[in-house]
């Protein structure tokens, strides 16, 4: 039941989107953050075969079933997180990058991230003045159960504060910023550890950027309905 093959014709030179019929799982092993349970990860493999040619392309990813929710608590002003319906007390570390000369190896990532897990952390926050971290970073966060708070490339100190005021409108080329943001989201979106996107460090991005980022990252209407459905079922239970 966890293997599905579907057929599709694609016109010459065309680019199209295909949505598989969803795969059903009964009580899959859930992915939990460090300290709350196992980091269960499933291997997802997608391949395309073309008639008369054979295998044309393939793709693999480690995928964790988890549901992450967060909201700003009106009483404390702090952000509260739930993972798989369970509240989690966040113990986090701030992260800029692993090496200032960007010699970013898998071994280095594994060592650094395991160290955070060994310190009993359950979240790493990637600061907006540093890097958007690489898939290998996220892979080890998936494996060691570190939730990731990922900021985009805006900092108050370089975009909006100071005397004289620094770059109040953020980067010069807003379209370029959004091209990079869209591509980054596509690069990282399948990782179980990815918990929260944030517009920038201690700063709201310029209105047009912030609006576009919110639009890119909003839940697809289909899943809003799923959430409602889920809630109704929970209430019934």
């Amino acid at each position, binding site marked *: 039941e966890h293997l599905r093959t579907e057929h599709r014709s694609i016109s010459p030179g065309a680019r199209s989107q295909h949505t598989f019929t969803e795969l059903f799982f009964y009580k899959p092993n859930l992915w939990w953050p460090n300290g709350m349970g196992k980091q269960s990860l499933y291997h997802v493999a997608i391949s395309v075969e073309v008639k008369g040619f054979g295998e044309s392309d393939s793709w693999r990813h480690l995928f964790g079933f988890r549901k992450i929710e967060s909201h700003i608590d009106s009483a404390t002003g702090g952000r509260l997180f739930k993972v798989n319906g369970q509240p989690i007390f966040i113990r986090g570390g701030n992260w800029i990058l692993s090496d200032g000369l960007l010699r970013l190896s898998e071994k280095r990532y594994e060592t650094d991230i395991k160290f955070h897990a060994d310190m009993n952390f359950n979240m790493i926050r990637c600061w907006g003045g540093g890097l958007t971290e690489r898939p290998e970073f996220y892979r080890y966060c998936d494996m060691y159960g570190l939730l990731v708070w990922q900021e985009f490339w805006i900092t108050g*100190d370089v975009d909006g504060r100071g005397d004289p005021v620094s770059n109040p409108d953020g980067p010069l080329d807003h379209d370029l910023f959004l091209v990079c943001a869209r591509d980054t989201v596509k690069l990282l979106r399948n990782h179980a550890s990815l918990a929260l996107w944030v517009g920038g460090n201690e700063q709201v991005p310029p209105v047009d950027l912030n609006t576009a980022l919110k639009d890119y990252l909003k839940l697809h209407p289909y899943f809003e309905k799923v959430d409602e459905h*889920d809630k109704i079922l929970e209430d019934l239970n």
Partner: protein
Amino acid sequence: IAGIGKTRFDSGWLAARSTEVELTGAQLTTTHPPTGADPPWMEAVVPGTVLATLVKNKAVPDPFYGLNNEAIIDIADSGREHYTFWFFTTFQCKLPEAQHLDLNFRAINYSAEVYLNGNKKVLPKGMFRRHQLDVTDILHPNGQNMLAVLVHPPDHPGKIPPEGGQGGDHEIGKDVATQYVQGWDWMAPIRDRNTGIWDEVSVSVTGPVKLIDPHLVSSFFDNYKRVYLHCTTELENRSTRVAECSLSIEVTAELEGNFTLI
């Protein structure tokens, strides 16, 4: 390179300061390739930055020891051309008919010109974006391919005020790049502003149809008993014929050791 899949290029790179190379990208990748790590060429760190390459070759001291960073010229004083570098490598690839080769850069800081076997492609600005080039038609018929990449630093590397400060003079914030490189309260300025091919370089072989950025999402019901995995992917048919495709998705869980549940 053989068969469908990805091959990383993370060794065998050479680098040279652009001002010390009088050849064009077309010449470097056709008639006058560098022959080895002889000046001005040196072994390069890819992925990594120009500064990482200079440190590896002991052209500058390691900036993270003592006050060594003070001995490295800042891009504000040297000019951008000082940290504008050529990167060069070769690879073997001869494709059967109907296969395609993509040259992939997962990130470059900040912009670049790519030359493959004398053919030029421009990579647009932005530190946090992927670049994919279909190079099928410009591979060399004999299978020996030469690749040169001219990497330019950020457009606004800025100056570091004598008193330092958060993000230097803030010029770097005008670009879409990492901002800590102008120095912060916890960090000395990075002299090359992290210019370089700083993330994975690879080539990928595909058939006529390519998968692009699959997206996986799960939804939960009945207190996490009933769960669905949703998957959407983009597909591109690069051939001149209609492609009849069989798309498969398979999910497996490794239990322990060599046991797999399908």
